[in-house]
């Protein structure tokens, strides 16, 4: 496991370096002048040059990049947003990511619960109406874009059950749950569908194994057979997919956050692009890249833990 871990960590570094170069390069070349934002449009050109020098913004690209990355790596300092009047980029990202993280975790929990349950029921009664219904819902979940599903939830579900349709209230755990339930349903629909289909296929294969037949022959009830012998053995690919998807949900909730006006990181970065907030764009995209790559790494390590053959893969 040690050499595998080391190899994966070594792959992690160049990916992040490449991402950081691309992100920094894009923000470096973005139109807009931070010094003008700081000093105002009527500032004296010489005073602006002095300020530019003081902030190191007149140095060559590679020097600015190294200085930026030095601060990021050594101090976790992502700089300040000039467009937001000196607010810290790290502080802003963490504030917004807290919402995105809660949304992604709730969406994952809901989709695992619904997707696995639907998959198990389908596998227990293949080609029955339960199976057809599950397949149909899975098809809808896969096909329906999040904004469309969001509007259906607005129009039909929210008024009926008294849930809010926009924003995030963090007063208590209950109000947080209420704010996030509809967005989590919309965000998790695709994953629910994928998990339902995956669980069904894996369970069908597992339930046809000899050891399951043996368990049944020993007189075990249907549910213990399905849950203990079937689901436990079918769990490995499910866990892998859930882990990989969680990374995707953490960085890919932009549409859901926009439709439900949730103050998450994805929506914040989209707004930052519209507002030409280059420091926030660079910091936010870099942060998302780290999260995504880390999640993938964790999934790979988990997979290797479950299945030793993966570690031998050269």
């Amino acid at each position, binding site marked *: 496991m040690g050499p595998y871990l080391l190899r994966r960590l070594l792959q992690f570094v160049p990916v992040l370096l490449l991402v950081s170069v691309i992100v920094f390069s894009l923000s470096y070349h973005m139109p807009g002048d931070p010094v003008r934002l700081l000093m105002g449009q009527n500032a*004296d050109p010489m005073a602006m040059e002095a300020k530019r020098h003081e902030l190191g913004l007149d140095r060559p690209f590679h020097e600015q990049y190294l200085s930026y990355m030095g601060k990021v790596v050594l101090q976790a300092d992502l700089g300040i947003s000039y467009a937001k009047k000196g607010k810290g980029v790290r502080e802003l990202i963490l*504030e917004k990511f807290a919402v995105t993280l809660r949304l992604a975790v709730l969406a994952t929990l809901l989709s695992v619960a619904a997707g696995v349950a639907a998959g198990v029921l389908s596998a227990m009664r293949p080609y029955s109406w339960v199976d057809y219904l599950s397949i149909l819902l899975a098809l809808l979940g896969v096909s329906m874009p999040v904004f469309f599903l969001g509007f259906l939830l607005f129009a039909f579900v929210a008024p009926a059950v008294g849930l809010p349709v926009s924003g*995030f209230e963090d007063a208590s755990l209950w109000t947080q749950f209420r704010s996030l339930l509809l967005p989590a349903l919309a965000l998790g629909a695709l994953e629910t569908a994928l998990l339902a289909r995956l669980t069904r296929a894996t369970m069908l294969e597992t339930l046809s194994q000899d050891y399951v037949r043996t368990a049944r022959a020993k007189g075990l009830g249907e549910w213990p057979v399905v849950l203990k012998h079937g689901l436990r053995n079918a769990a490995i690919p499910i866990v892998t997919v859930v882990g990989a998807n969680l990374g995707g949900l953490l960085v890919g909730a932009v549409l859901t956050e926009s439709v439900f006006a949730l103050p998450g990181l994805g929506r914040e970065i989209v707004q930052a692009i519209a507002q030409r907030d280059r420091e926030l764009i660079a910091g936010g995209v870099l942060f998302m890249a780290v999260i995504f790559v880390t999640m993938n790494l964790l999934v790979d390590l988990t997979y290797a833990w479950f299945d030793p053959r993966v570690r031998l893969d050269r």
Partner: protein
Amino acid sequence: MRLSVGSVGPFLLPVALAAGALWLGWGSGDTGPAVFVQDLRAEPGVLRIGITSNPPNLDPVEMSDTTSDSVVERICNTLVSFDEHLRLVPSLAESIPEVSPDGLVYTFRLRRGVKFQNGRTMEAGDVRYSLQRLAEPISKRFWIVEPVRGATAARDAMARNSRGDPQAPIAGIETPDPLTVRITLEKVQPLFPMFLAMNNASIVAREEVQALGQRFGRQVSGTGPFRLVEWKDNDRLVLERFDGYFEGPAKLRSVVYRVITEEETRFQSYLNGELDVIEAPYGNVRRIRGSNIGDQLRVNPMLDIRYHGFNMERVLRGPGGEVVPLGGNPESSPGEPVRLTGDQRRRARLLRQAINYAIDREFLCTALLEGRAVPAKGVLPPGMEAYDPGLAGYRYDPARAKALLAEAGYPEGRGLPEIPYNFNFQPPNPTVAQAIQSMLLRVGVRTRLRQMDWGAYQTYLDEGKATFFRLAWIADYPDPENFLYVLFHSKNKGQEGNNARFVDPENDRLLEEARSTVDPVERKARWRRAEAYIVEQAPWAFLYHNATALLIKPYVKGMVLTAMDSGAEIQQVDLTKVTVEAGAR
């Protein structure tokens, strides 16, 4: 394979349910008056307003957008302000300023005992400090104090400072005692008190600004009825009542601005009882008017103008690279200068006039904008002093447009290259652009639509790259000067207001004459003359004057809209008189 009912049976129920639900949702608008399910539970004492964007900056001298302006309006005060009829009334000043016989010296007597939100009493020194901030390099509204003696010198002296620290004094602002401010102008400017009613001229406490530096733009404070207690970017701003407000505490306990970019989400949040005031969604006004929430709709005419500007510095190029004049400035196409002949400038004007005649404004206002706009004959909106109801303007006349096009040398549009047509993608701009594109095509003028986000669009306009572009102007103060002088004088070319970059000595002369005239009757006549000249030269396609269409919950009382309120920001509404009572479901 043949499908039997049995093989598809399990799918039928959910499919039918889904189809039924969609049919119900979509069909309701066409089969009779729409019925919206709505929640009417209020949060007593709290006004929740849905706004479209995060305010970029709340420092009064740095702000230039209506969202920031509306928030600052609640937190700060100015020496004078506008009442609901847009008359100038005293605010922090005890009365309207005394003016010296030569019209150069304004004396403001301040109210006694006005408290800042930090507890300190406001004095004349705070007024001087706040007005001098308008000459600092960060200020976006230097022109407010520009008429004051010594303002330009102070601005130049401060240009080398990072944020105007130390602040250079403006010689014309004096404080003979703690409750008197005397302001001396370089030359007569009858509108100067109106300039001081703009929120950019808000009075703030020096110690707060100096302690916070650029963060003052995020933690602004003043003497107003509400104070900022929370600002979560792109999410919400929460204001709480300031009990020490000099006119007595507001009736509302709190004002919450919720930032919701998506129009449909805002509307659903309103219906779901999460918001009390929003701008009515475009394309739905007619449906709402006839529905069960029709009585919540308030359509309020605004002092504004929506227009499409021609960049007067640009020319088009034909297939062989030949010059096709569109802008009419003598010197065109910066970077690739072309000196237009008199005949080319005449042809350019004919082309711009043809485009004006080809646009069916009635259709835009009634069909597309559902009656929330009136066609523009010129620049000044109805209700503005000097508005000329007799101005002919450009009525829809495709035959005339074709004739002018032919006279300009492009019969049926032959020889005329495609015109790049820029706009930002907020509603209703894309719909309006598509309609105008089709109207122009009918007379032979081809355009290429270019849609951009607002940030990129602003930069594109500021750099003078747009050829034919959408823009709007909402009054800062109710005077023709704010439209005609700001938007067309060559001195304001570019981002100062004259985005069409219109440079015409005769026009400048007419505008300056009108601006410096004190006699109201003569002044009005001169503004009309200047407007007629501008309409004749057609540096814009003059489109329409908009109205704000708001949805306001019935339990919100005391909200008096003015002609300077745009969108849900309702920046001129006096919120101290507004109440939110307990509503019922």
